[in-house]
């Protein structure tokens, strides 16, 4: 018997977790660069057909791009969306250039602090950056993001940001217990603020572990279980992106999407083949094949897979 409380398990199926996301919700996802995006969740959300979403997207290029490519996004509050080493997120760029979606731009710190303001239940958050640029001057909302106020303690004028609270935050972690206490190996992007800011939090996890394992590593717990509503067990949930310390990005498969994104027709064919044509994440992994998945496993010192460039 475990000496630690296991409570009522929050573990649900991927389909049940995605089903709790309402049509038209505002969403924020974990992930940075090509790592740590909850892509198994995004694919299930796409299969369920809902849309009309608003995204609060700091660095989650892959979730934002796939949802926009499928026409499920109306508005994005963003700080940077691009594919490192590849180039532009073309479906998003095409949607902006054609006026299909609206955007409001921030700096990375600005958008992160708006989420933190919501997470800390503050009416505003001071910031020195963004000032003087078009990130201050162009505000397409819908809510105002940046104002200036007089400091109550000096003669200084200071920029302040409004809070931003997503309806649902979805984050992918390396390990979680059945309560959603989640450990992320490597950088956490802005997951700490996202899970505090969101009204609902869904954790997808590479491994579900016993409470003892979380307790033993309790200084590494980025996601406090008390904030989490649902937990989904999803090995290789960030694929074809990587998960630091576990598996490397699959550049060939990511490049496959990037090439398809050159045209609307090709991107639709990609989504049909790799998302809508597959029943669930198990079928997706089956399609990738165990040999390819094992080749992506990283060396425990260098944190890179063999055969993916020099260490």
């Amino acid at each position, binding site marked *: 018997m475990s000496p630690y409380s296991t409570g009522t398990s929050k573990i649900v199926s991927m389909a049940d977790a995605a089903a709790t996301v309402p049509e038209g919700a505002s969403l924020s996802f974990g992930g940075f*660069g090509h*790592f740590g995006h909850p892509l198994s969740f995004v694919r299930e959300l796409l299969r369920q057909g809902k849309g009309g979403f608003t995204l609060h997207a700091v660095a989650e290029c892959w979730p934002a791009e796939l949802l926009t490519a499928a026409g499920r996004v109306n508005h994005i509050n963003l700080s940077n969306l691009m594919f*490192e*080493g590849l180039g*532009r997120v073309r479906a998003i760029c095409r949607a902006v250039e054609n*006026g299909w979606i609206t955007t409001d731009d921030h700096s990375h710190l600005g958008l992160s602090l708006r989420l933190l303001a919501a997470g800390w239940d503050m009416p505003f958050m001071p910031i*020195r950056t*963004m000032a003087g640029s*078009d990130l201050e001057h162009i505000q*397409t909302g819908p809510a105002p993001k940046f104002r200036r106020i007089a400091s109550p303690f000096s003669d200084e004028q200071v920029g302040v940001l409004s809070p931003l609270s997503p309806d649902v935050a979805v984050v992918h972690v390396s390990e979680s217990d059945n309560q959603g206490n989640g450990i992320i190996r490597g950088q956490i992007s802005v997951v700490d603020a996202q899970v505090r800011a969101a009204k609902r939090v869904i954790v997808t996890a590479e491994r579900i572990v016993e409470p003892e394992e979380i307790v033993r590593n309790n200084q590494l717990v980025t996601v406090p279980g008390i904030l989490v509503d649902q937990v989904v067990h999803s090995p290789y949930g960030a694929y074809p992106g990587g998960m630091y310390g576990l598996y490397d990005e699959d550049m060939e498969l990511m490049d496959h999407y990037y090439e398809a994104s050159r045209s609307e027709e090709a991107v639709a064919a990609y989504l049909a083949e790799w998302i809508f044509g597959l029943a669930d994440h198990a079928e997706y992994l089956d399609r990738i094949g165990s040999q390819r998945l094992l080749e992506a496993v990283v060396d425990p010192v260098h944190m890179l897979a063999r055969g993916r460039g020099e260490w």
Partner: protein
Amino acid sequence: MVSGEFTRDEMMTVATGRFIHDGWKAFIGTGLPMVAAYLAKATHAPNMTLMFESGVLAAEPRTIARAVGDPRLQSTARRVSGMLDGLLLLHGGNVDFGVLGGAQVDRFGNINSTAVGGEGYSRPATRLGGSGGANDIASAAKEFLIVVRHTRRTFVERVDHLTTPGYLTGPGAREAAGLHGRGPIGVVTDLGVFGFDATTKRMNATSLHEGITWADVEAATGFDIDRPDDLPTTPPPSEHELHLLRTVIDPNGVYLKGGPQ
């Protein structure tokens, strides 16, 4: 390639690296500036600290990193946290230097990396990635350097979108906006090295790379760059610098393709 020859990319890399002082704490992205930082660390700035917006602190990668999210940076860093922690270290005034690029630059060193042409921000001809940490770095780092290829499309009279603040509208504008960083200290392009006048904050020329004429610069610039009376040639890369770039730092040409261009 015969001895003494070098590519324009190699010249840009070496010129960028020369801006980096030993002991500096610097935010440097990927691409050519990353190669320049490795070169500076291997030569005159062994004690510089590489920092990234993802919260990666003091990374010492053994081989060239492909991206800011590259595991090579995290697996060799002294501390790894997240975006808020990394960018608030910057916001707190702890970062000496940043290197930034962009799609457009104007005479005051303002940068656009958001949207180009069309009907403006909401309906541009070309949407780009957006600020990311660039606006934060330009606002809060003590100084920053612009590294960009020199064309008339890039060097424009007015940026279509002011993503990242240089000297904004000119003298005093950064101070009025409340920015604590001093602003851009230079621009490195494939044609030369440029600076900003201490009084007017307008871009001026510091040196031209070997084989480049003032007419080349004028033809590739959409505004008047101030030309000093004395315009030297940028010191070319040394044999040692070229050796390091080609055989140690980027031997597989991840960023620097071999051969004169």
